[in-house]
C-alpha cells in the first residue's frame, strides 16, 4: 500500500515541475503578445489597419510616432512616471479602471505626434460584462473624434457584441466632444438612428439598449476624467 503514496507524490511533483517550467519558459512570449495586442488596439483606434503589420512594424510605429504619457487628475503631464509604474484597479461594479501610483490616481495617455491624435483608454459596464476599449480625439481642437475600439467584452454576439463591429465604431468618427459653447459634451448612443448632422449622437444598436447605454455612460465618465487635460491644451 506504500506504493500508492509514492506514486501520487511522484505524480504531483512531476506535474508541478512540468507546469512551472512551461509557465516560466513561455512567460516572456506571452507578455510580448499581450503588449503587441494592446498596441494593435491603440493603433486601430486611430484608424490604422493593423492586420498587415508585423510585430516589428507595430513596435517601430509605436516607438516612432507615439508618446506614452502619464497625467495627474489636474491635467498636468508627470514626466517622471511611466505607464508601467501605474497599477490598474478595476471597479467591478461599474467597470471603471483606476490607475494608481502610491495610492494617488493618475491617468495614462497616448499621444500620436504625426497624425496629431491622443488616445485614451475607456472602460465600463455593458449588459453582461465590462467593456474595454480606446477612444481617439484630434489634438487640433481636442473635440473631433478620430475613432473608438472595443477590444475586450463579453456581450452577446450580434446584439451587444456589435460594439466591436465596424459600422458601430465608424459612427463615432467626426463627432465632437465639445459643444459650440465650449463645454465638454460627451457622445450619446441613442435608440434608433441619430439625426443627420448630429454632433454628439450616434446610432444605437437595436436589441442592445443596455449595452448602448453602457457605452454612453462610460464615455461620459471617462472623458470627464480627462477634461482638465483637454482644457489645458485647447486653445
Amino acid at each position, binding site marked *: 500500500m506504500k506504493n500508492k503514496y509514492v506514486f501520487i507524490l511522484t505524480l504531483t511533483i512531476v*506535474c508541478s515541475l512540468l507546469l512551472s517550467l512551461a509557465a516560466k519558459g513561455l512567460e516572456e512570449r*506571452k507578455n510580448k503578445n499581450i503588449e503587441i495586442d494592446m498596441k494593435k488596439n491603440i493603433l486601430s483606434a486611430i484608424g490604422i489597419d493593423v492586420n498587415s503589420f508585423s510585430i516589428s512594424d507595430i513596435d517601430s510605429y509605436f516607438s516612432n510616432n507615439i508618446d506614452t504619457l502619464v497625467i495627474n487628475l489636474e491635467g498636468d503631464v508627470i514626466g517622471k512616471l511611466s505607464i508601467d509604474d501605474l497599477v490598474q484597479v478595476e471597479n467591478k461594479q461599474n467597470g471603471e479602471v483606476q490607475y494608481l501610483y502610491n495610492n494617488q490616481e493618475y491617468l495614462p495617455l497616448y499621444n500620436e505626434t504625426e497624425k496629431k491624435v491622443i488616445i485614451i483608454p475607456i472602460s465600463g459596464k455593458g449588459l453582461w460584462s465590462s467593456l474595454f476599449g480606446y477612444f481617439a480625439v484630434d489634438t487640433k481642437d481636442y473635440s473631433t473624434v478620430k475613432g473608438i475600439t472595443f477590444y475586450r467584452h463579453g456581450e452577446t*454576439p450580434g446584439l451587444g457584441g456589435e460594439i466591436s463591429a465596424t459600422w458601430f465604431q465608424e459612427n463615432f468618427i467626426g463627432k465632437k466632444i465639445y459643444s459650440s459653447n465650449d463645454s465638454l459634451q460627451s457622445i450619446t448612443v441613442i435608440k434608433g438612428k441619430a439625426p443627420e448632422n448630429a454632433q454628439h449622437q450616434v446610432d444605437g444598436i437595436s436589441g442592445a439598449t443596455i449595452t448602448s447605454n453602457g457605452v454612453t455612460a462610460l464615455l461620459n465618465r471617462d472623458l470627464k476624467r480627462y477634461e482638465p487635460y483637454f482644457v489645458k491644451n485647447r486653445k
Partner: protein
Amino acid sequence: MKNKRTFIDPLVDNNPITIQVLGICSALAVTVKVEQALVMTLALTFVVAMSNTIISLFRKYISSSIRIIVQLTIISTLVILIDKILQAYMYEISKSLSVFVSLIITNCIVMGRADAYAMQNNVKDSFLDGLGNGLGYGMILIIVAFFRELLGFGTVLDIRILPESMNNGLMILAPGAFIILGLIIWAQRSITNYIED
C-alpha cells in the same frame, strides 16, 4: 482488426457527440467559426490521446480508490500546458477560445475515456481510442462550425462565400448550434437506424 475498430468506432458508430451526446457544452461554444473549431479539435485530441496513453501506462499503479484524482491531475496538467502554449504561440486564437481551453478539463469525453477505457486497456489501444474519440468529437465540431460560419457570417475560414446580406444572426447565437447539432444527430441516427435503449 481490433486496432482499426478502436480507432474507427468513435468516429461514426460510437461518436462521442452524436451517439453518446457528451461534450455538448464546448460543441456549442466554440463552433461559431471553423478556425476555432479546428484548434479546439487539435487541443482536445492531443489531450485525450495523451491522457489515455499516460493513464494506461500507469494503470497497474493507480489504485482504484484514488483513480479519479490521479486522472484529473494528469488531464489538468496537459490542459494547462496546452493553454500556455496557445497563449505563447497563437495568442489571437487563445483569446477567442478564452475559457474553453481550460474547460477541456471538465469535458466528459476526456474523463470518460480515461476511466472507461484507458484504465482497462493496453497503451497502444488506449492511444488509438483517444485519437479516435478526439477526432470523432472534432469532426462534428467542424461540421457544425462550417454551417454556422457559412450561414452566420457568409464565410468559411474567413474566406467570403455568401454575400454579407445573407448573414443569419441566429446562427451565431447558441440556438444556431442547437439546431444544426440536432439535425446532424437526427440524420445520423436515421441513416444508421440507431435506437437508444
